[in-house]
């Protein structure tokens, strides 16, 4: 138990750089939205 608490507190202390990084504007993924590129040389096979 003591070990787990120690680990938790260590992880909490290390969270600071994570939160800072999350503040950096990043490209966000749009849920459910995709781009597909078609394989032209395979397209003819499905006609």
């Amino acid at each position, binding site marked *: 138990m003591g070990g*787990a608490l120690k*680990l*938790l507190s*260590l*992880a*909490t202390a*290390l*969270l600071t*750089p*994570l*939160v800072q*990084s*999350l503040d*950096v*504007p*990043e*490209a*966000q*993924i*749009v*849920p*459910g*939205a*995709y*781009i*597909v*590129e*078609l*394989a*032209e040389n*395979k*397209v*003819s*096979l*499905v*006609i």
Partner: protein
Amino acid sequence: MSSSQAPSILYNKLDDAGEKYEHRMDLTYDLFKGVSFKLDNLASEQEVAKQIAAMPEIKQMWPVREYPVPNDKIVWTGNSNTASPALNTINKRQSSDNDTFSPHVMTQVDQLRARGVRGAGIKVAIVDTGIDYDHPALGGCFGEGCLVSFGTDLVGDAYTGGAAPPVPDDDPDDCGGHGTHVAGIVAAQVNPYGFTGAAPDVTLGAYRVFGCEGSAGNDVLIAAFNQAYEDGADIITASIGGASGWTEDPWAVAVSRIVDAGTPCTVSAGNSGDQGQFYASTAANGKGVASIASVDNTQAPAILLNASYNVANSSSAASFGWTEGSPSGWGNISLPLWSVNYNTSDPANACDPLPDDTPDLSEYLVLVRRGSCTFVQKVENVVAKGAKYVMFYNNAAGATSVAADVEGLVAVGMTTAETGAQWISILSNGTDITVNIVDPDSAGQYPSTRDNTATGGFLSTFTSWGPTYELDFYPQFSAPGGLILSTYPLELGGYAVLSGTSMACPLAAAVYALVSEVRGTLDPSTLEAVIASTANPNLFHNGVSASPFLAPTTQQGAGLIQAYDAAYTNAFLSVGSISFNDTDNFLESAEFTIRNIGDDEITFALSHVPAATTYTLASDSIYPQEFPNEFTSSSATIEFSEKEVTVPGNGETTVSMTLTPPTGLTTARLPVYNGYIALNGSDSSSLSLPYLGVAGSMKAATVLDTRSTYLTSSTDPAFNPSAANTTFTIPGRNATGGANTTYPAIAVSLALGSPLILVEAHPAGSETSLGNIYGFPSPYNPRGATVSRWNGLLQNGTVVPAGSYELVTRALRIFGDAEDEGDYDVATSVPFTLRYT
């Protein structure tokens, strides 16, 4: 079959499976054939997406990512109610033929303009927020015969990025402002503010990818670039980006194809200079794409309030600029000017009580020089003699706002040192001056500039640093982007001063147009090489002071663009830059060719000019050091095949060289050595070739912060670590969880970018992997932290049964072998229990 049939095959499959979807965009172009869509059922979308990706018709599949409008700093905007500046002031500034606009002087654009080079016949496409084509300085119309002659709106006003699909229309008008500012930098026409774009005779294309608010999806960006290419754009520019560092990003890949097909593309390097080295942005980091860094303007535009004065009894008034202070009860007044004395270098003007023979000042505007004591002290001394209105004149550049709330004072302001000196000169001759102030709420604008002695001409501290993770050279070169005056939508004031690499990029695009007009070629690699080899490397500046050494090529690329030299030098280099890569992939020797298109031979003396070797990682850390990075004086040495080479007229000569990386460095901190190969020609030409390399192993660098990679829960806004053995009860396979459903999630923190992240589910305590959770493997990841929730679905399409699990995150190191387990950094989560409702 035509490519337009292929999406129907895809959609038929979705229909057959009973999946609801929304079509987003046709991406049916010569250089990119595909489609974007959105699956409605987020509970099953991951599984469906996997099935689609496995279809033989699908070559590649990526999630749609959205990129925000760049966070450029708005320094000043005009007032749409009082937008007309003082025209008689403007007349003293540049005309179309005499280009004194400081960004153009800095880049030799003024010299090309003096030769009549204006970009005629060249089509420049701008991918941005649209263009306010109604603006008189941007032609006032849209379509054939107009300055903004082509383009389209790919998204519609209401588009905000996110899940809502774009709704295209034909009108690329701008409601955001960013694109109109960019457009003016390229091609603004003569206007009351006295500047023009760098290439005012080009025609512009407006490819609008943002709605009035929000972000742009990369499907929209891919479409915009391809549409511009197919519409015949000669040059495509975008001041847009997002953290990446990988040339394989889908938008970067799409832009690289366009460059390969012969159309130069310029993209801003990014405004994340604070992040240190290795923070390249997409699509600027695409192969062959010109990434543009920013330097600060040598002249800081300053827009003052307009007022006038009459000398003696003359009916002709002259304009001057001033800044209101506090108090500011000016109203509309005309008062005779009275000065404390006629000494324009008096350091303590009105710091002492005024003499007894001072007249009653209540019916004057009192002129006081700034300096030595407080504004309040000076004002108290003149108010003691009855003054109600006080105008300071500055003892430094510009005119700043004064606060002097002294009882009895009605209004205070400040004018420039130049205006003060002019007035003193007139008064000292015994000639009266009457000053006419228009109330600040309705006063016009007085455009002015002041010397930017603090940072002018140096790299902007905000400009993002390269290189890419695989050590592609980045950025290519720099252009003025800090403190840039340009057009702005009329409804937002008409003109604005903005700072960002967004402002540097369009100037570079305009220079591409000018140089291509002179050279008669649009070949991207030729233009990049000639612009790079003639650019001016600059000293490093930390935002406060300059250093005696050159700024790293990872910040400035080849240096500040010099357009005239790029257009007219007789000597070309075959490449724009050289990357010697890292110690594992070291390029032991390199060569380049000098081509001479003149008739006379040129002899070049070769030398090596190192720039500052720069540590990437902070001391004793796996994370990159933030700006400004630590430098070291240890630099590479270069031996040339010959110290002097003669290139015959209309001939070429190849130079080879060997480089020895610097020694004595802490290689684990990834020091980037860099600099320039200088070529001084007998024809007075001065060329340089930038290079970089890493005196360490990229593969040896830790990419995954294993201590900050942990199990968390999807509904914790702070994403704190979850305790071991937490139970997550989630909807079953065919159920949809509500917004409050707490899923297990994995927080992954990358200190450096990783080419591949795996997150595998293991039964708790077991070393046996059940496979990647859905969403992984994730290729080409930027550095930073991400949180991914897990609904029990594996990448192989199966759903794990209820039970106890651990998530094992493995991040492949840069240049690592995906098949070699030793090339991954690994973090194992605490165990947790998964249950289904």
